Every structure is written in structure tokens, then in C-alpha cells.
């Protein structure tokens, strides 16, 4: 090739590394943007951004710890935070592919925690082989049903899933408060907490539950990292296989591409919308159940201000809707969460800075600030291999209030 191709510039396929770099440019650029702007905000309020980020780094990955924190413990905490984010991230990403925006992962997660707790408390004497699956399945089913309401409304009346899932989030939050404050799940003498689930209903941690065993200088019991991690990884794998290797996945992607085309291809829109939402809700509900079975062993008032399902939106977007991307993004956000706590105790800067960073990441990835900046640089415009419309952020520019994101752009 190349002979006389002066006009039509020769363009080879980028090598694998090059494509990888190009694919990672937008998400990494968004994270960079968030840290720069977030640092500016910290600086503007008279604090040192480097102190803040040192705290984040320590709490996230156990590096550069100012107070001699245990690195292994920090990494363990980050993974614990990442586990539900992976499952909820998948729960947001799957409907995305069908052109549906699931803002309801939070409500679905809460539905999962409620069902899992109810089963785990009520049938506490069942043997583990029965009880643990029952707890996890009940969580998934509750989440599926909660999301299914939005799916059915969308499929039958056209009610926008964004609005219905927002309403379902708040309905779940108030239901949760009712259940553990004066409701049936509040045991006598407790306030704002359920009874603990039975010990047979708990997911084992990776390390032995024995404080005599010392791991990395600390008793094994302080490391909370649990086998829910395996469930989360499997969930991500199921998501990928479902999407790319099954006929349902084909229908979901077809629906996301174009409703009209999907109809011509014989895809039942109503059925696909409902099934997609059911599966998405199951992932979030499972996340809630895993959180109960693996970490909290019961519901507490901390779930009143839980934001996992909202963080998951950022995870799904930052992960560009791919299984691997979601896992990586979830690990990043898990690290930020874990880091926020250390930042607060070490540097005295509110862990809420993490929310600010997360919002900045969302702004950046949705608006493709990086792409806009790059396009301002002289000479870059002509060398771009893909038009601006190929940038991930444009995937989020919906055709109409109900139209799906542009599939081709999501998958770049």
C-alpha cells in the first residue's frame, strides 16, 4: 500500500499498544482532569492538595503512608469497597447497551440488602449450603423485581426509566428506614439496625476468622476482604458473555443501536426492555446481598446514606461499559473510598473530597473535556484517526430523551 496515496493518506491499523493507549486516553484523562481541578479546589480553600492526595494514595493502595498505616489493610479495604461497585457497575452498564439509563442501582441494591437481611435473620438456623445461596438469591430477586417495576413501566407506558428509577431509589430508602426503625426488622432494644444475620448466612473472608493468626503484622480478622470478590468477578464475566455471546445480548445491543432497526430484526422491544432491567436489578440486588453476607452482617443506619449505586454510574461510564473496564474503574473508586478515610484522619481533609473528584470525573467523561482540549491544540486536529464523534463521551449524547446511547462509540 502507499503507492500514489498522497491524497488519501495511508493509514495502517494502530498496533495493539497504540489502540490500548488510545482507548485508555479518555478515562485516564478524565481522572487526571478531576485530580487537577480537585487539587485546585483544595488549594483554593487553603489546604495542600499534595497532603490530600498523599492520604488518598495511602488509604487507596497503601503507598506513602504518613502515619505508618498498614499497607495490606488499606489494599484490603479498597477491594472491599470495590466488590459492590463491580456488580452495580455492571447493573448500570447492561441497560446502557440497550439504551436504558439505570439510575436505580442504589434502590435495587437496597432492595437486595432488605431481602437478604430478612432471609438471613429469619432462617438463621438453616445450614450454610442452603441459607447462603438463599440469602444471595433473595437479594438478587428483590433487586430484579425493584428494577422490573421500572422496566415494565417503560415497556408498557413509556414512562422514562430515569424518572421511575429515581422514585424507586427514594421509595427503597424510606422502606429501609421503616424496616429498621420501628418496623418488622428492628429487634427489641435495637435502634436503626436489624438483628445480625445468622452465622451460616455469611460469606467467608479469604483469611481465617482467627485473631491469633497474624498476617502482615495484624490479626487476620481485621482484613475484611471476602469471597464476594469471586462473585463480583463472575458477575462481570457473566455480563460480558451475556452481552457478546448470547442472543439476548444481541437483542440488547440491537435495541441500543436503533429501536427501529431492532424491530425490523425481529427483536421484541418490550420483552428486551423488561428482561434487561430484571437482569440489571439482579446484579445490584446481588451486590446488596453480598454486602450484607460479606461485610455488614445486617442492616444499619449507614445504608441511609449509602451511595454505591450512584458511584456505580461513574464506574460504568469510566469503564466504558466493558467488563474489564468496569472492574478497573471499580477498583479505582474503591481505592478512592478507602483513601478518603485515611485522607480525613491523616490530612484533616474531609473524605467528601472523593465525591467532588467523582463528580469531576463524570463531568469530564460526559463532556469529553479532554477531547475538546486536544482539538484546541494546533496540528492535532488533522492527525486524529477518529472523528470527534468517536470519542467515548459522545456515546452519552442521547438522540432523544428516550433514545439509546450511540453503541459504536461506547465500544471504542
Amino acid at each position: 500500500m502507499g503507492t500514489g496515496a498522497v491524497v488519501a493518506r495511508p493509514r495502517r491499523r494502530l498496533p495493539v499498544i497504540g489502540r490500548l493507549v488510545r482507548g485508555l486516553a479518555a478515562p485516564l484523562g478524565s481522572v487526571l482532569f478531576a485530580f487537577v481541578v480537585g487539587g485546585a479546589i483544595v488549594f483554593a480553600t487553603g489546604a495542600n492538595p499534595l497532603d490530600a492526595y498523599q492520604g488518598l494514595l495511602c488509604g487507596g493502595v497503601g503507598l506513602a503512608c504518613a502515619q505508618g498505616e498498614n499497607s495490606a489493610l488499606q489494599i484490603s479495604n479498597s477491594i472491599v469497597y470495590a466488590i459492590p461497585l463491580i456488580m452495580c457497575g455492571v447493573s448500570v452498564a447492561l441497560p446502557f447497551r440497550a439504551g436504558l439509563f439505570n439510575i436505580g442501582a442504589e434502590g435495587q441494591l437496597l432492595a437486595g440488602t432488605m431481602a437478604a437481611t430478612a432471609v438471613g435473620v429469619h432462617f438463621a438456623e438453616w445450614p450454610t449450603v442452603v441459607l447462603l445461596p438463599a440469602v444471595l438469591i433473595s437479594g438478587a430477586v428483590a433487586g430484579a423485581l425493584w428494577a422490573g417495576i421500572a422496566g415494565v413501566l417503560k415497556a408498557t407506558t413509556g414512562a422514562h426509566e430515569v424518572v421511575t428509577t429515581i422514585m424507586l431509589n427514594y421509595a427503597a430508602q424510606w422502606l429501609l428506614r421503616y424496616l429498621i426503625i420501628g418496623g418488622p426488622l428492628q429487634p427489641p432494644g435495637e435502634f436503626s439496625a436489624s438483628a445480625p444475620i445468622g452465622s451460616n448466612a455469611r460469606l467467608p473472608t479469604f483469611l481465617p476468622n482467627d485473631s491469633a493468626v497474624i498476617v502482615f503484622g495484624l490479626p487476620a480478622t481485621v482484613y475484611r476482604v471476602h469471597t464476594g470478590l469471586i462473585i463480583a468477578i463472575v458477575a462481570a464475566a457473566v455480563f460480558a458473555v451475556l452481552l457478546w455471546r448470547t442472543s439476548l445480548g444481541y437483542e440488547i445491543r440491537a435495541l441500543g443501536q436503533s429501536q427501529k432497526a431492532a424491530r425490523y430484526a425481529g427483536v421484541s422491544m418490550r420483552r428486551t426492555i423488561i428482561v434487561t432491567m430484571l437482569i440489571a436489578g439482579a446484579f445490584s440486588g446481588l451486590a446488596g446481598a453480598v454486602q450484607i453476607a460479606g461485610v455488614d452482617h445486617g442492616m444499619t443506619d449507614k445504608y441511609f446514606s449509602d451511595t454505591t449505586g450512584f458511584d456505580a454510574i461513574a464506574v460504568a461510564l469510566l469503564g466504558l461499559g466493558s467488563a474489564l473496564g468496569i472492574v478497573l474503574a471499580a477498583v479505582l473508586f474503591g481505592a478512592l473510598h478507602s483513601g478518603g478515610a485515611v485522607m480525613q484522619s491523616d490530612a484533616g481533609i474531609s473524605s467528601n473530597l472523593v465525591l467532588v473528584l467523582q463528580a469531576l470525573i463524570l463531568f469530564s467523561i460526559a463532556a469529553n473535556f479532554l477531547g475538546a482540549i486536544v482539538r484546541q491544540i494546533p496540528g492535532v486536529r488533522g492527525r486524529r484517526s477518529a472523528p470527534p464523534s468517536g470519542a467515548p463521551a459522545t456515546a452519552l449524547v442521547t438522540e432523544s430523551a428516550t433514545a439509546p446511547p450511540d453503541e459504536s462509540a461506547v465500544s471504542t
Partner: protein
Amino acid sequence: MTALSDILHLLITASLWQSVLALSALLLLPALGGVISERSGVVNIAMEGMMLTGAFFAVYADLHLHNPWLAALVAMFAGGLMALIHAVVSIRFRADQIVSGIAINIFAAGLTVFLVNRVYGLQDVGHINTSESLPNIALPGLSSIPFVGQVFFDQNVIVYVALILLVLTHIVLFRTRLGLRIRAVGEHPQAADTAGVNVFRLRYGAVITSGILSGLAGAYLAIGISNTFVPNMTDGRGYIALAAMIFGKWTPFGAFVACLIFGLGEAIYYNNSIIHASPYLLSALPYLLTLIVLAGVVGRSSPPAADGIPYVAGGE
């Protein structure tokens, strides 16, 4: 049966309806903002964050300026700035307006607590109290009318402002050229553009107006109803305002009726000592009612045709 007679008894007290109107006004302001923004074609689910920002800056300004009126102005400015971010991201950068809205809400939740920590050195659960508040004004003469006087003419100043804005929004949207243009831009921007209407300017204006109104609601909450800023004190009210907007089919008076219904629920909640249902289940009611409305039980509720679609000049 005692519960029912208790409720009936509660429903004929003037003080209940006084607080219904006071609480409805809190929802009405962001709901009007939502109506204006979405009528111009920009989806706005960020009223929650804009309100919260307004609430923080109202308290912040109040503590520094010792003047609730200036504090309310600062809150409106802060809400408007938040809205400007939403406008730039979704109009200039044509980002997904829902993602941008979520980002605003997360941003506001994080930033306000971060600032509480930085400015006042408090940990995440800190309360900041103020002393100067937006006053209640009992209109002389009118407020002494039995029942009606207490309900309508003995209210916080912002309640009167909200009711005036309600009428004003209705008139502007449906009786003026400006309103016609806003609606045209929301229904068919290409046609409006061809007719010489500046789509971008109108949309910017509409979104920023929604932020100003939400910011004012935040001020009303923080230095009118209470005298304190508490993290996440809006507690979903911006989302209830969104629900009210949909409930009211994107019209000011429709939204107001919805706000009254939700306000009634909340007022009963505050008087729950004589109601024997769980206050938490009552709190879930506005959201469930909205779902029922969306299910088409009371007729279809559909947004403006171009709501949520970024406009590209000369595109399509």
C-alpha cells in the same frame, strides 16, 4: 377509627394548612425551575444539588454579612453558578444531561460538606447555626381573617415570593413572546432557530434561572425554615420537585398542585404524633404516587419533544 378521626381533625386546623403552604413553597421554587429548564429542552435533575449549594452558601453568607436578604442573593448566585456548570456541560459540550445532572448532585453533596470541613473545621456531621433569618411576615389586616388569614397571609417572605413567581412563570411561559420562544426551543429547536430565535441563549437563560430558583429554595430551607446548615439537608426535596414537575405535566400550576399534595404529606409527617402510621412509609408516598402517575393512571405525562436533546446549530 381513632386514627381516621385524628386525621380528619388535623385536616381542619389552620396551622396544618399553614405548614402545607410553607412546605409546598419549598418544593415549588425548584419545580418551577425544572419546568422552565425542561420547557427550553434541557433535562434538569440537578435541582437537588443546586438547592443544597444554595442552602450552604445562604448560611455561609448569613454568618459573614449578618443580612439574610444578602444571604438569599448569595444563595441564588451560587445556585445559578451550579446551573451554569450544567448548562455549559450539556449545551456547549453537548454532554448527556442526565449524567451532568447526577454529577451536579454528587458535586454539591461533596463540595458543601468539604467546605463545612474547610471553613468551620467541623467533621462531616457538623451543624452550622445562624441567627439572622428570612422573616415571617403577617400581612396587616389580612392575616387576622379567621383560618384564611393564618394560612395565606402569615407566612415566610419566601412563600409570598414563590407564589408570585408561580403566577409570573405561568404568564411568561404561556402569555409572552419570550415564553413562546422558550417552548418553541424545547419542542422544535431547528424550526425556532430558522425563525431567528437564539436557541443557545434561551437554553442558557432557562437553565440558569432554574439554578437561581433552586438556590433561593435552598436559602429558604437553611435560613428561613431552619437556622442551620446540615450536610445533605435537602434530603431528596430537589427530586420531589422533579417529581412534582412531572406530576404537573411540565406546567407551573400543575406542578404547584403536586407540590401541595406532597406538602400535605410532609405536614402530616411533622404532626405524626397523632397519626399512627410509620412516618417513614408516609415519606415514601410522594415517590410511589409519582410512579402511579407515570404508569398512566391519571393520563399521560410526556415531556417537551426536544427535552434532553443537545442542539447542534445547522445540524441534522
